């Protein structure tokens, strides 16, 4: 099936262009980029060169499904392929899948696979690999946080060597977009559980070496099925924790590209000559988890009161130095086609105080957990606790290492911050976080009556207008009762030398090396 056929079948009446709406952000053309310097292509891509790519954290694991770090996902994006990738409008475009056909109203999807593709080991890519990959992603014990990466899949079967049939638990209109997800890389059936030791993908780069904590090197795959998008001879990822050292490395010509840099560094270098600065709106945000299954947040009035404590505009100005946008407690940034008209939550301390008094929970004294490993959340937490103290709410700031936070705080304490990156589908950005049975709903509550049913209807709806309508209902419900506050969305911030060409600031967290080249 061709892409135009897909357009006709997948969402009747929806053109390829308007498929933009299928993305959970739905804002690719609605939000203007704020790059410090415009990226101007310099002639035709030049082949060759090794990109030295620097980021603060090394991969936690080389297992493409188990990884929970952006560096791990960036690595897997180089070495592995997805079934589809997303274009600038968040539309699915063929990768290892060449066509996708919805059947039974989107409950089943027949996916045709590309022929003639080989893994780096030399073994041919077939439907057995896709089946093995998806089945692994359905087993949380084997796939960890990658569990559910392919969406609400009930089963998958091979239909010959070059086609697979997905049977979903519910109709899922955004299914092809979901296939581009960060943890939905296609893995080889052989050795699928040992990929952290023996990486083997179909991607444009072949794993060469990983020095834990220091560097990761990949080399160009000379047999890549789409050589037009591979310009580099290789990529060397290096890891520098200290931002001053990162800055020195870029200025000293030791690295070419820095990603996810602190805002202070972006501001310090954004006007430096010989470098490009990138600041782009994303769907990345910090959430304040006010756990609805624990006191005092099991009281709806307390949850509502907490919405009026923080001065969000001041927080964006002082914590993000303007490199972000105010949030309104829903996981979609301003400009998304799925957002209804809603009143922006503003700081209103008298109202917050009155709501707490009406709740009858008595004086509130809580530990507010955050981690300096997830900047700039602690600054926001400090601002929050200072504002709360003005209405008699005592929030003791507890800044702890991330490992301790992951073990003892997340899902276990009533009040803490968490970090979320933008996603291309409503399934990942909304359903997986707010449905009471979903993995990322930490409190496992339905924060307002009937929310689960609305969330199920939202992802099942294949008609865009109807999906918009039900999603707007969901957003209103989340805005009024969800047990997560979303005070701001963070911009993606990065820097490169002038010779880095074809770099596109990532909308969904991970840098794409396909298309990047180095000028002379």
């Amino acid at each position: 099936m061709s892409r135009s056929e897909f357009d006709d079948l997948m969402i009747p009446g929806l053109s390829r262009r308007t498929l933009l709406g299928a993305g959970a952000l739905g804002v690719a053309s609605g939000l203007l980029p704020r790059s410090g310097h415009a990226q101007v292509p310099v002639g035709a891509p030049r082949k060759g060169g090794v990109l030295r790519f620097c980021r603060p954290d090394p991969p936690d694991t080389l297992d493409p499904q188990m990884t929970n770090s952006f560096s791990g996902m960036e690595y897997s994006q180089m070495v592995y392929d997805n079934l589809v990738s997303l274009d600038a409008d968040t539309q699915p475009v063929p990768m290892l899948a060449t066509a996708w056909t919805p059947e039974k109203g989107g409950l089943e999807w027949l996916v045709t696979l590309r022929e003639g593709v080989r893994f780096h080991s030399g073994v041919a890519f077939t439907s057995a690999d896709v089946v093995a990959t998806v089945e692994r992603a359905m087993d949380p014990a084997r796939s960890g946080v990658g569990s559910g990466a392919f969406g609400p899949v009930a089963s998958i079967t091979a239909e010959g060597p070059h086609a697979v049939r997905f049977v979903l638990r519910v109709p899922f209109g955004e299914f092809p977009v979901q296939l581009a997800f960060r943890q939905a890389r296609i893995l080889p059936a052989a050795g699928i559980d040992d990929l952290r030791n023996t990486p083997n993908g179909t991607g444009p780069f072949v794993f060469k070496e990983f020095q834990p904590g220091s560097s990761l090197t990949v080399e160009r795959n000379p047999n890549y099925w789409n050589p037009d998008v591979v310009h580099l001879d290789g990529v060397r990822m290096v890891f520098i924790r200290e931002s001053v050292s990162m800055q020195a490395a870029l200025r000293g010509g030791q690295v070419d590209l820095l990603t996810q840099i602190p805002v202070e560094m972006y501001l310090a270098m954004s006007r430096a000559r010989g470098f490009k600065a990138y600041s782009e709106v994303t769907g990345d945000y910090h959430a304040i988890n006010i756990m609805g299954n624990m006191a005092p947040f099991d009281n709806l009035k307390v949850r509502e009161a907490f919405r009026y404590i923080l001065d969000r505009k001041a927080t964006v100005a002082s914590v993000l130095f303007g490199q972000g946008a105010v949030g309104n407690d829903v996981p979609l940034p301003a400009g998304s086609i799925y957002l209804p008209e809603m009143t922006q939550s503003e700081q209103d301390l008298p109202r917050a105080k009155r709501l707490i008094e009406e709740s009858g929970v008595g004086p509130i004294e809580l530990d507010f957990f955050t981690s300096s490993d997830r900047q700039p959340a602690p600054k926001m937490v400090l601002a929050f606790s200072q504002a709360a103290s003005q209405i008699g709410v005592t929030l003791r700031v507890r800044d702890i290492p991330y490992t301790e936070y992951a073990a003892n705080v997340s899902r276990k304490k009533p009040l803490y911050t968490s970090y979320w990156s933008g996603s291309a589908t409503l399934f990942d950005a909304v359903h997986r976080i707010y449905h009471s049975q979903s993995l990322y709903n930490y409190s496992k509550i339905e924060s307002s009556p009937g929310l689960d049913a609305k969330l199920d209807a939202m992802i099942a709806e294949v008609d865009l207008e109807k999906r918009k309508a039900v999603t707007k209902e969901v957003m209103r419900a989340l805005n009024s009762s969800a047990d997560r506050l979303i005070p701001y969305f963070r911009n993606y911030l990065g820097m490169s030398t002038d010779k880095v060409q074809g770099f596109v600031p990532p909308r969904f967290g991970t840098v794409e090396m396909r298309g990047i080249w180095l000028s002379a």
Partner: protein
Amino acid sequence: MIALTFILRRCVMLVLVLVAVSVLTFGIVNVLPGDVATAVLGDMASPEMVEAVRERMGLDRPLDARYLEWVGGVLHGDFGRSLQHGQPIAPMLLGRLGNSAILGLITLGIAAPLSIALGVLAALRPGHLLDRAISSFAVGAHAMPEYVIGLLAILCFSIWLPLLPGSSLMDPNENPLNRPEALVLPVGVLVIGMLAVISQVTRAGMIQALGSPYVRTATLKGLPRWKVVLKHALPNVLPPTVTEIGMYCGYVIGGLVVVETLFSYAGLGQMMTNAVSYRDIPTIQAGVLVVAAAYGIGNLLADVAALLLNPRLRG
């Protein structure tokens, strides 16, 4: 004979210390909140996922069984595999140990003679300008954390005056001597830290020695000043100074966590930082054991040197 007994006794003590350190490290890391399963899976994982991964990694087994298994491996020269990455620890450790040793030995080679010289110079005319300058520098450097000195060094020499690389950015299997320019700032920061302590120990010892009767006798005999200082006073000052330098031997092998992390230098300290972040117990155990051994051997060598320098101790 006495010296031999002394050395043997210290060797036995060193082995006992290493056993104690390994037990303590194992216990402490297990008491810390979180383990490699929670660290790798992160806050998004459900308790069921964490349990499944923990079981697969063998973290659900009793502590003593895991410890004894690890000890058995070490006695056979096998440090095991990293829980986080699955790679064998021994080769990883060796490469990084070599890098840390190079950084440490260069630091010692520069800092030890320089700090002794500064200490002697300061002691020659206590209270005078040179002494005050050296002592003020030493106290200031000692008061300032290595992290701050390192940041200032990067700001000054890599960003404001782009003369030297602010990051070493080398791999564990890369020979740092091939890129001497990348060693300048880390070595400089470490030397400043060492100068502060050793020069002051030397200065204090030298002031005391220069006021002693045997030095006055040597001076009254008409010996030149340099001979009095270098041949009569200095040998008596060296034992405590050498002991202090011995303490630094262990430090420069495995205690360079801050400098190695700041300069992205692929040494033991950087490996340990990463391992602790991920609660990678076998890697932490192996690293701590090596560092403890380096401290022990450094102290032993310092004691032997002090023995050789001080005839009274030789009996």
